[in-house]
């Protein structure tokens, strides 16, 4: 893991759809593209499966950043319109996170097709640096201290 000086290694959770971004991530790995090891991937069949609860849960459990990525709209979705549901839900999640006081830069949602492995590797590297600059979120501890 690389380090930009603040000595912090962010933990990032990525929810990737099986058909596009997960394939891209797989290809990026098989092609041995250089990427930081900070992103833990959870595969879902469709980005439309990503319940906003999952994103909040990831932050609650200790994630410093979350990525949701699916197939390019309009036509790439394996399930025809699953990505449109993501498109509708994610702006709401963004608003919700803001209300919870989580910085905008900690949540990324977008589209990476199965053919865009380099784009995935680039996203991983750039997003890791972005979250690293924001520092630890430590939401779990904050929530606990509030409960106490």
């Amino acid at each position, binding site marked *: 893991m690389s380090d930009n000086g603040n000595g912090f290694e962010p933990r990032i959770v990525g929810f990737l759809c099986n*058909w596009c971004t997960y394939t891209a991530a797989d290809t990026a790995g098989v092609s041995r593209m250089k990427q930081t090891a900070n992103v833990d991937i959870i595969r879902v069949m469709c980005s439309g499966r990503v319940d906003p609860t*999952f994103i909040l849960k990831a932050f609650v*459990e200790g994630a410093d950043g979350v990525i949701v990525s699916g197939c390019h709209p309009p036509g790439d*979705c*394996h399930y025809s319109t699953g990505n449109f549901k993501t498109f509708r839900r994610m702006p709401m999640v963004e608003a919700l996170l803001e209300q919870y006081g989580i910085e905008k830069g900690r949540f990324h949602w977008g589209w990476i097709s199965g053919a865009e492995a380099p784009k995935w590797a680039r996203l991983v590297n750039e997003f890791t640096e972005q979250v690293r600059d924001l520092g630890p979120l430590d939401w779990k501890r904050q929530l606990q201290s509030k409960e106490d």
Partner: protein
Amino acid sequence: MATLTINGLEVHAEEEQTVLEVARENGIEIPTLCYHPLLEPHGACRLCTVEIIRRGWPRLETACTYPAWDGIEVRTDSPPVREARKVILGLFLARCPEAPIIQELAREYGVTEPPFPPEDPDQKCILCGLCVRTCHDLVKAEVLNFSQRGIDRQVGPPFLEKTRQCIGCGACRIVCPTGAIEIALEDAAVYGAKPLGPTGAVWVPSMQAVPLIPMIDTDSCIHFRQLDRSEGRITDACQACQMLCEAEAIDFDQQDEILELDVGAIVVATGFEMWDPHGLPQYSYGKSPNIITGMEFERLSNSGGITGGDILTAEGEVPDRVAIIHCVGSRDHNAHVYCSRFCCMYSLKQAHLVREKTGAEVYEFYMDMRTFGKGYEEFYERLQEEGVTFIRGRGAEVEVLKDGQLRVKGDDADLGRLVQADVDMVILSTAIQAPHDADQIGSMLGLGRSEDGFYAEAHPKLRPVETNTEGVFLAGNAQGPKDVPDTVGQAGAAASMTLALLDKGEVTISPQVAVVDEELCSACKTCIPLCPYEAISFMDEEEVARVNEALCKGCGTCAAACPAGAIAARHFTTEQLLAQIEGLFRLPEEEPEEVEVERVPS
């Protein structure tokens, strides 16, 4: 049915046939100049004059206009007929002394000198009016007509001026028996835009085309051009091919049809399209007609092509030196990064054809010779023995010199220096690419595309024929560049997989489907419009939503949206996913003891 005798031979005639038609049907030749089987006979040239004896009276009549009446006797070569034709040909010779067909016919009839001194030795028009009738009756352009009278009679457009009425179809030039008409086109002719395209308005792409059926090039066809020009008013222009086709196979009204079929499997074999070499201007494509693509060379060397298979430059000469440049648009970061795979082999074949047909020197500029298939390397060696010059290094630039000569520059990696060759013809082995509308079929069938734009297979090694959409298979260049044997192999595999799927009679579906816990379902119907497959229906009696497992594809969108948490996407249930998230952040209780692993020498 009428019975008549021609030169003593008893022949039968249908109603409305003329003497000329009956004679030709029976193999009796009568010379004509103004006759055309598609046009009404006109009797203008008088050359078909024959002796007709009707009710005992002999008369000289034109065979093209005389009806084949019952009981008449026709003589096509009797002394009075020969004398009459001699007079006619003498008059023609006096008018058009230089027209080859007139000279030839006159010689045949023993006329050596014109009876009068020719007025205009360059005159070629015999005023037969065949062009006028063609322009009026067939093309329906009504441009050509006679003007003036007597010795001033002439043929031409109104006032002999240029007219927009003329569509430049050239039909008049084709029918003119004496070659008196030339077509001067101001802008590029229809065929000018397609130098190696259709050879006529009715054409077959190659003699080996499958199916071997001619088609009409509607850009060139007079019928369709007139239809377009007149915005649908002229519907009966030139139907010459239809009139001539005995099988009555020509249908001008045929339209593209959309067929709706219910099928159990789909093989996508949409192929490729050629990359346009205008994209790399250093190869000067389009700046000289002698810079052609490999595909155009195929057209040129095809026996059904414009030269009948002779390899000629645009000037009609046999080339002395030919350059073939590999990888134009392939393996190039300014165009396509991938290798188009089959160009090396067709370039070698084309080099062989050039050597064989013209004996020209051939220079092949190549980066790597990818002779990957069975017998390919041997063919490459054979070409080396045939004396083709191979230059290892990308052909960098084609320059059109002032005199039209082509100069190919490139680097020779073996010599380590720049080289150039002056040649008469350059063949660019251009890249292939996914069809420009590949995304339409892609989104229709839910196919992904790999980085190169071709359709993505389900797995590059283990499932190279399947796609991520069940029941849809790939064959050929739709999936990526492939030569013929590879395409046939993949197509066979796709066909087998299709049959295997259909033969089973039932479909195996994935267990990853959504299920509704009917105890929890609050009957809010949120999930119903979300499903792209209409797999969820609402049970009115039980007041619950229910998933049809045969229709459900398992995307889980409904599970994410269910406010009651009543829908579980099997194998991706909320509990499973939450547990995964928790698992990611669960710290190990204590550091596991370090275990020393003994290295076993291998």
